[in-house]
Structure formats: structure tokens, C-alpha cells
């Protein structure tokens, strides 16, 4: 994408910003343990967790790997794995 003058970008620019690139380790959900309580969803500072029928789903395009979800999960259903 060509740069606009002065660091200006069109609307919705932050949607295209892949903050997932910043991550050095990745949260993994143990769906067997997940009770879909939604605590991780509430605490995620990037709002990149959604709760589905199958359990918590993490959008890795935006997840910065801050580990707050891992820390907050009451069932310890989340763990961090090193990036490949």
C-alpha cells in the first residue's frame, strides 16, 4: 500500500495492523478444560478473544501475547507456547 503524505491513513487503518507480529509466544486453549465463562474475553486488552460453542477462540492476527488471559483463566485452560 502506497504511503499517504504525513503518516495519514484512510479510515479503519488499525484494523489492518497485524499486532500479532509483536507476539513472542502464543496462547493455546485447552478446549476440554474451557468452561466458556468469558473471563479471558473480558480481560483481553486487544479484544481478540471470542467465545464460541467450542470454547474460547483467539484471533492471532491481533493477539500480542500479553498472557493476561493465561493469568486470569480460573480453570487454567490457557497456556503459552513458544512461537515456531
Amino acid at each position, binding site marked *: 500500500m502506497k*504511503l499517504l*503524505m*504525513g*503518516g*495519514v*491513513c*484512510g*479510515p479503519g*487503518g*488499525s484494523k489492518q495492523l497485524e499486532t500479532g507480529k509483536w507476539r513472542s509466544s502464543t496462547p493455546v486453549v485447552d478446549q476440554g478444560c474451557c468452561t466458556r465463562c468469558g473471563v479471558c474475553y473480558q480481560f483481553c486488552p486487544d479484544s481478540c478473544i471470542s467465545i464460541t460453542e467450542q470454547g474460547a477462540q483467539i484471533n492471532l492476527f491481533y493477539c500480542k501475547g500479553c498472557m493476561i488471559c493465561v493469568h486470569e483463566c480460573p480453570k487454567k485452560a490457557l497456556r503459552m507456547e513458544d512461537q515456531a
Partner: protein
Amino acid sequence: MMTGKVAIMEGSRAVAEAIRACQPDVISAYPISPQTHIVEYLASYVASGKLQSKYIRADSEFSAASILAGASAAGARTYTASSSQGLLLMTEVIFNIASTRLPVVLTTVNRAVSAPITIQPDHQDSMTLRDPGIIQIHVESIQEAYDTHIQAFRIAEDKEIMLPIMVCMDGWILSHSFEVVTMLPDDEISAFVGNFKPEQRLDIKKPLTYGAYADEDRLMEYRYTLMVAQQKAKGKIEEIATEFRQTFGRCSGGLIDSYRCEDADILFMAMGSLVSTIRVVVDEMRNEGHKVGLVKVRSYRPFPTEAIRLSCQNAKAIAVIDKSISINIGGILATEVKSAYYHQPKRPRIISFLAGLGGKEVNRLSLRQMHAQSLQICKQDVWIDEPIFVGLNKDIL
């Protein structure tokens, strides 16, 4: 033919009159000596209806600059003025304004920087803003300050440039003294300056994000575009000076001004009001048979490397007089002039003089002494790295 009305006028008033005629949409400022008279005049013009600008009093220079960043992004023609600590308080915002390509016009009424606190004039404030990308032009006289502000809006708002511009004038020496000024009719100034028509701006109907985040994939790219814009500004500054001359019949503007340089062995190089003192000394010394000349640097950013090389190529030495200091290196202008010559096969000696710091007097006698020292250095065939402090009182050290 020179057009206009002749008046005896204070420097600050002349600047305020030029700004009034250029009709900025938004003015925001915080008072600081010796800038105060400019913004007082502008506030009174707004209060009396002579000027239709929105005048926003700010709680600090940081706020004033921030207000103008927003106003300029929304498509307003903007103006502010400051000095010394006030300008330094704007610094963070000026980096943003320059990189966001907002053509704010700013007058720096040059004053030394604390500590010790002083209101005396030198160039430390503006020279400290060497790197953000703001255009920096130094003027020698009140007339030149008046003319340069009119050109400043054209340079800054040009669609290929779109950079903030700082017009620097020595505090007190220019801001508070009176000189004969030839004023131009308002309608002719309006016609010359035109309207500000940005190609992009904050608009609810066509949303844009200003101040967006950039990672390692694009920050350097933005810095590169600033380099390109500054380089283009060199041509634009000359072009607008030519148009000004053709329109109003007087020479004012450009990157540098050289005076009696033709066969000069020793050249003085300086910026600001000191240049007019040097002109007198050059005339006196020429009458006495000395081959001496003067190069006035008007545009410090963009730095006129090519023009300096051309005008100084036959000199034996350039005595560069800095009214500011980069601690540990010395003269800032001198350092850049040295850099401009490094790759040249033929280099004059570049002698760095630090003078006028904190308002210390630089007069005809001290200029003659600098000339004599420069001749001596040439005669001894030595190259001196260290700056020479002019008038340093060693008795109190």
C-alpha cells in the same frame, strides 16, 4: 519599481502587519519575551475586527503548537510565534507537525536558552530545532522579516513542500527596534499569498486517520519523504523569491545572499541581524584594500550546500560566525559548512567563531579581529578544529 507605503515601524509590528495581511484562519500563542509584541498586535487586530482570525490563547507553548497542529490538519492557515524556552517547549509538537506535513508558520524571535536565565538574543533556540524537518529562515532586517513572512506561507503551503516554516529574527535587535519598512497593499499580498488548499485534511465526510501508528516498515520511509520535501524546498524558496521580486519590485528572499565575494580571500558567513554589521565592515575594509566578502545564510533548513560551495569556491578562508553552540562540538553552522566542503577537491579553511552568545556584543572591532585572526591562520598554514570564542572574559573563569 518598488511598490508600497513607507513607514517607520517596530520589527514586531511589521511582522504582525505581514501576518494580518496573510489572514491566517487560526492563531494560537503563549506570550514570552521578546516575542510578546507580535502576538499582542495580532490579538488587538482580532479584537478590533481588523483581522478575522480565530485567536486562541493557550496555557503553554506546547498547547499552542498542538492547537495549531489540529487546526492545520483541518485545513486552516495557521500561525504562531515564540522564543527561547517557549520554542523548546513546542519541540515535541514541531516534530509531529513536520512529519505530519502541516504547514504551520512560526516566527522565532531568537533568544538564548536557560540556564542561566536570560532574555538576551542568540540563536540557541532555533538552532536546537535543526532536525525535525521544519524550514528555518533567518532574516537580517525588519524589511526582510516583513517580506519573508509573506513568502513563508507560500513556501510552507506549496503542495510539493507542505512543511512548517520558522522565520527567525533576532530578539530585541530586530523585534523591538524601529526601521523604515515599505509596506505592501493588503490586496496585493492576498493575491500573492493565495488561499491554503490542502490536498488532504480532516473532514467528517471523508474520514482520515491523522497520527496513525507506524512500525519498522514505514517510519524510515516517512523520514525519507521529509528529506525529499526539504530538498524540493530549496528550489521553491528561490522560485518564490523571484516571483516576489517580479511582483513587488524588490529583492528579498532566496537561500543565501553573497556580498562582495568575487575575489575575496576571507569571507564572513553569518545569519540574522549580525549580517548587517558585517556588511558595514566589509565596505570599510574593501575601501582599505582588503579582499573581504560576506555570505549571508538565510535558509538554514534546507541547508544551501550547493549555493555555499558556489559562492565560496575561491576564498582562502571562511570565517563562520555562530550565535549558538553545540556543546562539545562548537559552532553548528560552521560544522555544517565543513561538512558541505568535505568532498570538494578544493576546500577553503573553515574557521569557527562563537560570538554573540547570550547577547554578548559583536561589533565592527570584533569583526575586524576575526578577520585578522583568519588571515593569520591562513598565513601560518594551519587547520584549526576548535571553535574560537570571541570576547571570552577569561578573567572571571
